[in-house]
């Protein structure tokens, strides 16, 4: 559908951690600038989680549960324990100097103080975790609903089987037409074209974002289908670029870094 396809297979391998180091770096570089591919990677990770299900087997032995709960009970909270230790030692020293109470008595109290603070910190941690759990299921349901809504909104725009109809004045011949929807603060761009003339072999249309200052920025290549329709969704774009206009040229199949004259179609970006 668009140039993200070229990353599709590598993204699947990336989600499985099955790429070579150099290929991984290449994908990570692309991911840094491409929201669509980041979204696809999240989807792919969800798919690999499904794969995990084919492993359902025996339950872990009971001793594993005891071992984990034992380890958690022993797990030190480095920061709070450290502070408490110092405070307890300090208190014990002062007390010895001022009141002359025996060392071992105070050590006992200090240890008790440490244990109390430790227990409280464990309890807090536990209840935070419980809260996270409780909100998790409602958040999951909510985000699932939102994702479904978004999918419904986006489907007629980007699905290839969508019927695209351009209405023009009766008896007027159909004109090539492109519409760009650009959200600068998210570097998000959806572009739809209709009635585009067929291209010569080895050629492609290229969309350009003309910034307020600086040279035109490539915003994706596309080839119209048999009905002259095409779309581009979230091509990689530099963050936060303000668009003055969008333009279309015909380029060689791989696309170009600078536009080749003539400009076939152009539209100024309104506010």
């Amino acid at each position, binding site marked *: 559908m668009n140039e993200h396809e070229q990353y599709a297979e590598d993204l699947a391998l990336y989600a*499985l*951690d099955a790429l070579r180091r150099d290929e991984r770096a290449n994908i990570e570089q692309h991911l840094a600038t491409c929201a669509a591919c980041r979204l696809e990677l999240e989807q792919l990770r*969800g798919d690999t989680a499904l794969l995990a299900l084919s*492993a359902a087997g*025996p339950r872990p032995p009971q001793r594993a549960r005891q071992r984990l709960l034992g380890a958690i009970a022993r797990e030190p909270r480095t920061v709070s324990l450290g502070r408490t230790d110092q405070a307890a030692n300090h208190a014990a020293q002062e007390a010895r100097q001022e009141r002359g109470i025996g060392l071992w008595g105070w050590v006992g109290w200090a240890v008790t103080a440490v244990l109390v603070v430790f227990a409280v910190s464990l309890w807090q941690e536990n209840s935070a975790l419980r809260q996270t759990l409780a909100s998790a299921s409602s958040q999951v349901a909510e985000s699932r609903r939102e994702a479904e809504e978004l999918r419904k909104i986006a489907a007629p725009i980007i699905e290839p089987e969508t019927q695209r109809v351009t209405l023009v004045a009766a008896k007027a011949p159909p004109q090539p037409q492109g519409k760009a929807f650009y959200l600068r603060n998210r570097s998000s761009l959806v572009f739809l074209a209709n009635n585009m003339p067929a291209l010569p072999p080895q050629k492609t249309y290229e969309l350009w974002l003309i910034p307020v200052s600086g040279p035109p920025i490539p915003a994706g290549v596309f080839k119209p289908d048999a009905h002259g329709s095409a779309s581009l969704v979230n091509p990689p774009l530099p963050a936060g670029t303000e668009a003055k206009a969008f333009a279309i040229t015909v380029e060689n199949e791989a696309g170009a870094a600078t536009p080749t004259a003539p400009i076939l179609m152009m539209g100024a970006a309104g506010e």
Partner: protein
Amino acid sequence: MAELYDRYSSVVYAVALRVLGDTGSAEDVLQEVFLQLWRNPSAFDAARGSLGSWLAVITRNRAIDSLRKRRPETDIEDVVLAVSPDLAGEAELARASQKVRGVMGTMTPVQRSALEMAYWEGMSHSEIAHKTGEPLGTVKTRIRAGLMMLRKAFQP
């Protein structure tokens, strides 16, 4: 934590055991995954997916690291996945598990084995191509197509 453990330990243990093939090492990974969740519960972002799926992904990655005797390569906070079916509860887990095995059953043997080598053995695409004697491009295509079949089966 005990509640979380009771709910998800079966998935975590099964994944670790399948990768490592050894109950002792699988228990170690089980321990490590739940301890990490205990130490850093905020690493899991509930808005982005189900805890069961997230744990499955973390576990598989840790088990592969352990299999390859390498240090953990991914930070658990970097693992973000799309909203997917929650794997909590025996019944839901069993149903989903059966469905996944059904989809795997419809794949051609070469496709299933490419996917399994990548997922369960942590083999890279070039290692798989070398082992099967198939072109790199074919292996890549098979792996992605396999994942897409799974995705499609679980789409609402």
